[in-house]
């Protein structure tokens, strides 16, 4: 009874999104039931049908979607594997006073325009670029480097540009598990890996989920990032949608394709969530047990076998290494 109505705080965001997202986008969705009138028009709705959806369901759409899904899944996993240790280090090992700075430093490279920083990569990776010269100079390779326009380059471009969207939510999630809870776990005799696996990671799970979604979902709709370094190999399904709106000036078909894409992505996310849920089912009970433990009473430390230097050593050592 002391509580305000639950969703009151979400009302401003809800209203904003309804006015500036739902209303205009609903109009575009409406276009998908119409058609393209003549060569100079973009959409008309005087005759309604599902024909555009039938058109959108082309083999090219699904072939391209397959490629996109591959890039999306591989890119998201790579971001997670690369970003997780960094986020953990920033939130747990780095000196607390520097965390804000580190957080900002993760973002600073991305305040350079997307195209410009991509060109930076091109200069590094080009056959006569920096990396190639370096590798040839020290005799590691004899020919010019052939990295650009390969699947590897696709992933490099994707991982580079989406890494902050993974690191930041992970950082925020690790940050809240900071200190006390992990100390408690160690105090109770758990090793560092056990502490990480049983305490830190489960508590950081919302962050992992947020990070994975924030990388995967926009990446599935993105069609520029993958192509700038990956060329033809980075062909994404978002390109199909954009080409209908832009080059074909067929907003009706573009809209139908966009709807199709949204549905397919949501289904993919749902399927992924289901798989994760099933896989994690056996572990669930054990996590709950650990989390259910009351926060440790300030008990005398029980030194574990690998625990002689206690917690304060962590940050200090890190500081030395970093310096």
């Amino acid at each position, binding site marked *: 009874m002391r509580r305000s109505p639950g969703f009151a705080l979400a009302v401003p965001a809800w209203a904003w999104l309804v006015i500036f997202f739902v209303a205009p986008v609903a109009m575009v969705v409406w276009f998908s039931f119409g058609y393209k009138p003549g060569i100079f028009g973009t959409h008309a709705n005087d005759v309604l049908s599902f024909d555009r959806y039938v058109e959108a369901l082309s083999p090219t759409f699904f072939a*391209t979607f397959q490629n996109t899904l591959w890039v999306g899944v591989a890119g998201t996993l790579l971001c997670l594997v690369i970003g997780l240790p960094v986020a953990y280090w920033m939130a747990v090992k780095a000196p607390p006073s520097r965390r804000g700075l580190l957080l900002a430093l993760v973002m600073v490279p991305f305040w350079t325009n997307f195209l410009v920083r991509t060109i930076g990569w091109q200069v590094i990776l080009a056959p006569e670029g920096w990396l190639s010269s370096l590798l040839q100079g020290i005799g590691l390779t004899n020919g010019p480097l052939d990295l650009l326009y390969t699947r590897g380059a696709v992933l490099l471009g994707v991982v580079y540009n989406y890494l902050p969207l993974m690191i930041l939510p992970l950082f925020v999630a690790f940050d809240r598990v900071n200190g006390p809870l992990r100390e408690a776990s160690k105090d109770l005799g758990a090793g560092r890996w056990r502490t990480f696996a049983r305490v830190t990671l489960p508590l950081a799970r919302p962050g992992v989920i947020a990070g994975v979604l924030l990388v995967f979902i926009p990446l599935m709709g993105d069609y520029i990032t993958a192509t700038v370094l990956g060329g*033809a*190999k980075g*062909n994404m399904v978002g390109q199909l949608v954009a*080409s209908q709106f832009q*080059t074909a000036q067929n907003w009706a078909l573009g809209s139908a394709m966009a709807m199709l894409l949204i549905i397919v992505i949501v289904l993919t996310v749902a399927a992924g969530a289901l798989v994760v849920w099933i896989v994690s089912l056996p572990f669930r009970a054990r996590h709950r047990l650990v989390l259910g433990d009351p926060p440790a009473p300030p008990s005398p430390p029980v030194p574990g076998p690998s625990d002689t230097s206690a917690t304060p050593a962590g940050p200090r050592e890190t500081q030395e290494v970093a310096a």
Partner: protein
Amino acid sequence: MNESRSPVRILASAGAAKVIRAELSRRRFLSFAAAAGATGLLAACSPGGGTQNAAQATGGALESELSIYTWGDYDAPEVLEAFTADLGPRITLSSFNSNEELISKLVAAKGTSGYDIVVPTGTFIPQMIENGLLSKLNRELIPNIEHMDPAFLGRAWDPENEYSICKAWGTTGFVYDKTVITRELTSWQDFLDAAQNEASGKTSLLDDPAELTGLYFWANGIPWTTTDPADLDAAEDFLVNTLAPHVSAFDSYPGGSAIPQGTHALLQAWNGDARIGMLESPDPDRWQWVLGAPDTEIWMDNWAIPAGAPNPEAAHAFIDYVLEPANSLAELDYIGYHTGATGIEQAAKDAQLERLDLVFFTPEQLETMHEGEVNDAQQRIVDIWNNTKAAAGA
């Protein structure tokens, strides 16, 4: 800049002449007094003339602002600066990334976009006229059109230049790496052959459906604006099944990075872009430019005034200003594309600009360059383009 802006205009004679001319034409028009007839002879002899919007320029005093919506970095900064210094209107530049974007913008704004000058590519002009997005030019206010080469006036998209005047034009050809392809390539057939052999996996195509299907049509002597389903099917079959597996990138501007970085061996490119890439390559002799043969395209970006432009007088004055030979040369030097002015070839040679073989073409070559058009095949060629990309990415 400060010098030409100062009231003592002894050195800035060209600028002073402009002011005087603008002033003269203004008085002339005021004395005309017949404001209704001010759109001139052209309006009188064209069928759509009566629907012209009221904000038409009459040669009155220039407004203090001018808003130009164009491609980024597409005009010599010294010309823009000198215009403001000489004639007054302060220029605001905005950029678009595609003609479709420009059109969507003008359509949505319903004449209130606030832009005074737009720079659409020729093939899109019929659509813009049809949708009432452009306002007719008052050619009386653009006397410098006399410096334009007739070859670049009256093109298919605007036969009488009622709405548009050439800003820059270009054509399509290709560039190849002579260290990889040691034989001589001279035509689109050679290009397609090399792409499947020496340059397989090292070939870059323009990222545009018309130039992609054009590649096949030009090589096979088919008009590239064809709407014949049989031609389109044949093009699709070849591009998707034969060519696509050898293509490593779809890049509309390889000159800006791919050529100087040597990432491909064979690149379809626009002439001005190829020129910059070859000029800036650390090893220019490695590259050979070939104009598309037997046929290729001519594209043209054009000065035009959108319907409802708030500053039509300044817009006309600006278009007239850039057509002046000296300014035309500055523009050519800055962006590397032919502006369509007469005698500019000699001027460019005198100014010792490099690689002019990628800027100027002989009348015979010009004969082989054909205008594109947005027609009933548009959806089909976009599909072919998407299918080719899907096949190349697989």
